Each structure stands twice: as structure tokens, then as C-alpha cells.
């Protein structure tokens, strides 16, 4: 019944053309601009970009925060996912809903809450000055720490949800069997749980790492104009200095990082056997 391939292609044409013309083409032109130099093609925009200490600092900060956020999310994510999987079905449903719900709420609203908490007159500073630990309010907002906290809150559910489904697919008896044969909890985790849930970890890790690298709202609100990440730097270069060369370079970096992460981690997930 479905042999008519021309009809199949006709059904796909509108969406495919829309993406090609309205999305991929403009993006491709923008990216190619980063490789254009006065003399033709080359990488001079990149060397110029990385020649500035500020740009290098922002690059490494983005990379570092991405790694921290992903690592911490993974560690806490396993602890949370393990206790959720242990819960009764009804409780599990409620807990998962509690994790999904924040994903539906505006990131601006989610991030702004941290201004109330970490700001100069925020709860943390009220506590620190009120109890006499500090004389003057500490500067927590507009720092790497604030961005880190905001990113964790934003992306943590994206790590836990794949871990939960990976743990649910774990064969029922493997953990009790390993325990009975004398493995301690650490051994059970390293030798049984981790290898068998690697795919979930990779899915979650990709979402969190790429999400952190390409975050805009969190560094814009919690980092301010001084503590920049790549996306806020891009916005600042364009809106303040009309510096489209730097913007093109950042665009290439972000896309390459995003694609490389997706490809490399997918390889890791599907690699047979492991160690």
C-alpha cells in the first residue's frame, strides 16, 4: 500500500524545504562567514578571537562549568534515580512528575528565583549578616558559583529522567545476586549498575553538557555582564560592538562542541563490551 515513493517524498517536502531554506541555509552562511578572511578562506578569525585573554577565559569557563555541572548532576543523579526506582509505583509516578514539571516552566522564572536567594539582600546574605558570620553581604550573585547553581537546577531533571529509565530496564536479579556473592555497594555500583546503565548516563550527560555549554538565560541573569559564558559573550560582542567576526567564531565553536559531544558520547554508549 505504501510503495508510492513519490507520494512519500511529497509528504516530506514542505517540512524539509522549510528547514533547509529557513534554517540550515542562513545558519550555514553565518558559519561560513567565520572562515572568510580578507584574502579568501582561512582561520584568521579564530586566531584573532583566541588572541584575546578575555575570550580564552570565557571559553575555558564555559567548558569548565559544563564539566562541573554534568559531573555533579551525574553523581547526585544516580543517588536520586536509585531511590526513585526503589519507590512504589504510585510514589514513583509522583516523584517523576515533580522532576518533569520544572522543565515546563519558563527558564527566566526558574533562574530569577536565585536572584531572590543569592542577591545582596537575598536570603543567604540575610542569614550570613544576621548571624554575624559576615559584616557586609557577600557577592554571590554575578559569579561562577551562581551560574553553577542555576545550571544545576535547570538541567538536573534532564540527567535523572534517562537514568531512571535505564535503571528500570536493569534485570531484576543482578544487584541482589552480586550482593549475595559478596560484592559491597561500591563494587555493585562500579561493576554492575554503571556498565548496565551507561546508555542512560550518556543520554543525560549529553543533554546536560550541551545544555550548559549553550546556556544563555542562566549566565545572563546570574553572571551579569562581567562573568560571561560563550553565549552571553556572543550577545555582548554583537549588541555592544557589532563584532560579527567574533560572533561567527563563537557560533562555530558552539556548534562544533555540540556535534562532537553528541557523536563522541553516542559512540561511548554503543561501544560493545566496555572495559
Amino acid at each position, binding site marked *: 500500500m505504501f510503495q508510492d515513493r513519490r507520494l512519500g517524498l511529497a*509528504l516530506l517536502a514542505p517540512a524539509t524545504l522549510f528547514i*533547509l531554506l529557513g534554517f*540550515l541555509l542562513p545558519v550555514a552562511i*553565518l558559519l561560513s562567514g567565520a572562515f572568510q578572511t580578507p584574502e579568501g578562506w582561512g582561520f584568521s578569525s579564530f586566531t584573532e578571537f583566541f588572541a584575546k585573554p578575555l575570550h580564552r577565559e570565557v571559553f575555558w569557563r564555559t567548558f569548565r562549568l559544563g564539566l562541573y555541572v554534568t559531573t555533579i548532576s551525574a553523581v547526585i543523579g544516580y*543517588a536520586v534515580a536509585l531511590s526513585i526506582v526503589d519507590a512504589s509505583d504510585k510514589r514513583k509516578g509522583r516523584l517523576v512528575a515533580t*522532576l518533569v514539571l520544572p522543565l515546563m516552566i519558563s527558564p527566566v*522564572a526558574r533562574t530569577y528565583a536565585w536572584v531572590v536567594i543569592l542577591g545582596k539582600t537575598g536570603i543567604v546574605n540575610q542569614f550570613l549578616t544576621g548571624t554575624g558570620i559576615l559584616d557586609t553581604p557577600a557577592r554571590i550573585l554575578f559569579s561562577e558559583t551562581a551560574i553553577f547553581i542555576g545550571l544545576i537546577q535547570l538541567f538536573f531533571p534532564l540527567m535523572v529522567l534517562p537514568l531512571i529509565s535505564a535503571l528500570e530496564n536493569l534485570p531484576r536479579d543482578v544487584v541482589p545476586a552480586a550482593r549475595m556473592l559478596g560484592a559491597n555497594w561500591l563494587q555493585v555500583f562500579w561493576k554492575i549498575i554503571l556498565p548496565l546503565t551507561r546508555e542512560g548516563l550518556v543520554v543525560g550527560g549529553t543533554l546536560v553538557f550541551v545544555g550548559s555549554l549553550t546556556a*544563555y538565560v542562566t549566565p545572563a*541573569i546570574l553572571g551579569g555582564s562581567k562573568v560571561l559564558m560563550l553565549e552571553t559573550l556572543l*550577545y555582548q560582542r554583537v549588541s555592544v560592538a557589532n563584532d560579527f567576526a567574533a560572533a561567527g567564531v563563537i557560533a562555530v565553536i558552539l556548534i562544533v562542541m555540540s556535534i562532537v559531544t553528541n557523536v563522541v558520547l553516542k559512540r561511548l554508549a554503543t561501544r560493545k563490551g566496555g572495559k
Partner: protein
Amino acid sequence: MRLAGQTILFLVLAFLIGPFILICVAGLSGGETLAFPPEGLSLRWVARVFEVESFRATFAVSITLGIGATLLALLIGVPAAYGLERYNPPGANVIRNVLSSPIIVPGIIVGLALLRHLVIPLGVGILPALFIGHTALLIPYAVRIVSGSLVNLRVDIEEAAVLLGASRLQSFTKVVLPNIRNGIMAAFIIGFITSFNQVPVSLFLTGPGVSTLPIDMMAYMEFNYDPSIAALSGLLALMSLVIVLVAEKLLGLSRYV
């Protein structure tokens, strides 16, 4: 071990949900500046949110954009999903990758690319450009969710409809569509929320007179430290909560996320 797990679980949930409760309470403040605990409780800042002209205008833009972009994404995304799942045309894998590419490209780049290579050279308006950017972003979601529904729908019933004399179009509208209705509605809700909350794609595609609500909120908070953004954040959280709860009850939304 179990106790430690439960403690961590409780702390993490408090970390994820706690800030929402704080911001809702801070938005109910009677004082002049943002603070927690608030200086007295009142609804004045909630009322103030509805009086700010730019919030009203950008809310209308965000709602229109969200509904319009999601409808267009479904209008071209549903046939695409159907073509991919049923016809398996030549180059299906390449097309699949093309259709999901907007997920991989960071939104801010999309916005900048549309500004530099669509709005400026071709004279396309800001609003149509926003519409194009948001639709492109939503197509992958529409295709993925609807494909999921189509995979679960048996092909036999379509073949039966055609054998009994229905045309291709009739079998699609009378047999397939009613059966994937829940998937389409879930895709609509997820698409609308994604568009409504979207910041990076819209960032470069706003100008004097045209902005979206989240962008306008970020601009407002840069120069104001009153509780109105907290009140508005609380309202938006409430709106999402209601949409998600209703959708969960009617469609089982979480199956589609």
C-alpha cells in the same frame, strides 16, 4: 543506605522546587523592593504586572507566536512524520537528520543567522523572522512525537479502509488522524510551551515594538529591582502548572515528553 538515599532525594527535590515557592511568596510582597521574607503580603505587584504596558504587549506576541508557530510546525510536521513512518522514501535517513537538525544548533545562532541573512538582506520583518525561527525549532518535536504515535498505530486498519473503498486522503483523515489525535495534542502543548519559554532564538529577533515576554522580562529586571518580575514568574509557573496538569489528566502528557 536507604535513609541516605531518602535524605538526598528530599534535599534535591527541595533544591528543585523550593526556589519556586520562594519566588511566589516574594511576588506577593507589599514592599517596594524584592526581598524574602516579603514586607507584608499583598497582591499589589500581581496587579502591577497586568498594568505594565510592555508585559501586556509582549505577552500577546508570545501567545500568538507560540500558537502560530506550533500550528505551522504541526501542519508540515504531521505529513512529514507520516511520510517517514509509512512510505520509507529514498534518503529517509538524511531527511530524518535534516528534520531534527534544529535541536543540535544552539538557538542564539539561529536567531543571529536569521537576522543577518534573512531580515537584513531580504527585508523580511522581525515578526515573520521570529515565526520562521520558532517554527523551525518546533518541527523536530512535532515530527518526533507524532512519529511515536504512528509507530504504535497498526497499518492494517489503514489497509482495511482502503480495501473497503476509502481514498488515501479519506483513510488518513478518517482513520489515522483520529487515532493519533492525542499525540498531536501533546505535540501542540509541548511545542507551545517550548516556544513560549524560548529565549535564545528570539534574542536577536526583537526590536523596538516587537519583543517576546521572556525577553522583555530580562530587559525589565536589568533596571528594576521591584517584586513585579517575581510576581510575573509566579504567574507563569502557575500557568505552566495548570496546562501541564490538565494535559496530563486528558492526554497523559508525560508519555510524550
